[in-house]
């Protein structure tokens, strides 16, 4: 596993979408390679940031009422 391959698979690694073998190779590489480790930290932080920023909003109460009214005549 070299740096290019590691970076290529970084998102799949973060998304837990890799096969166990490839996952192990990436983990080993990240432990041995500080620059890739830094990039991993950065990408992980970015994904956490995105999730936190975008999930605050839910369906408006009025919409919920409207859906219930439409479905069940309430």
């Amino acid at each position, binding site marked *: 596993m070299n740096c290019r391959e590691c970076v290529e698979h970084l998102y799949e690694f973060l998304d837990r979408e890799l096969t166990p073998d490839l996952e192990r190779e990436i983990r080993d590489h990240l432990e041995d390679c500080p*620059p890739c480790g830094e990039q991993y930290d950065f990408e992980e932080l970015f994904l956490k*940031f995105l999730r936190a*920023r975008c999930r605050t909003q839910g369906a408006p109460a009025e919409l919920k009422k409207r859906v219930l009214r439409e479905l069940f005549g309430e």
Partner: protein
Amino acid sequence: MTNAPPPPDLKRESFEREALVHLDVLYRVALRLSGNPSDADDLVQETMLKAYRAWDQYEKGTNAKAWLLTILRHAFINEYRRRTRHPETVDLDKIEPYAVFPEVQDEDPQGAFFDRIVDDQVLRAIDQLPVVFRETLVLSDVEGMSYQEIAGILEIPVGTVKSRLFRARHLLQGKLYDYAVEMGYIKGSPA
């Protein structure tokens, strides 16, 4: 024994338990797809009506969220995309997102500048992504769905999900980075 449709109260009960609990997810995705709250309301309403009508076809206890999102996306494509947005003429292959990390590696490797970017600005940046990138990114990074689930909803191969996600994330990072430079959150050099 015949497969008679369940009595209305049972149908309602299972629909509330398995489908209505996903209202927030549907609304967030609808809002990102349609781009405005009023169309998002209509899209969710239409999705729920269609889902309730087709509820007998849904295999209970499987993946209601993915099933609902598939219905929502079809509704969006059929009735909203042409009406609410100009057809996209972007050549996706020509979009070459760059990785932000090498740009910030020396100045801010921890990505502290992200923390200064507020919710609205992030959502605005997402809304500027081409729709095929936007929908993939929202399903994955906002709603936490797996590649397989996303592939099912978008009706594309898993490999395409991967590549779209990779490019969508880099594209979004680039937009947020440019914004952070513009606002002076980070020195950098705008791409």
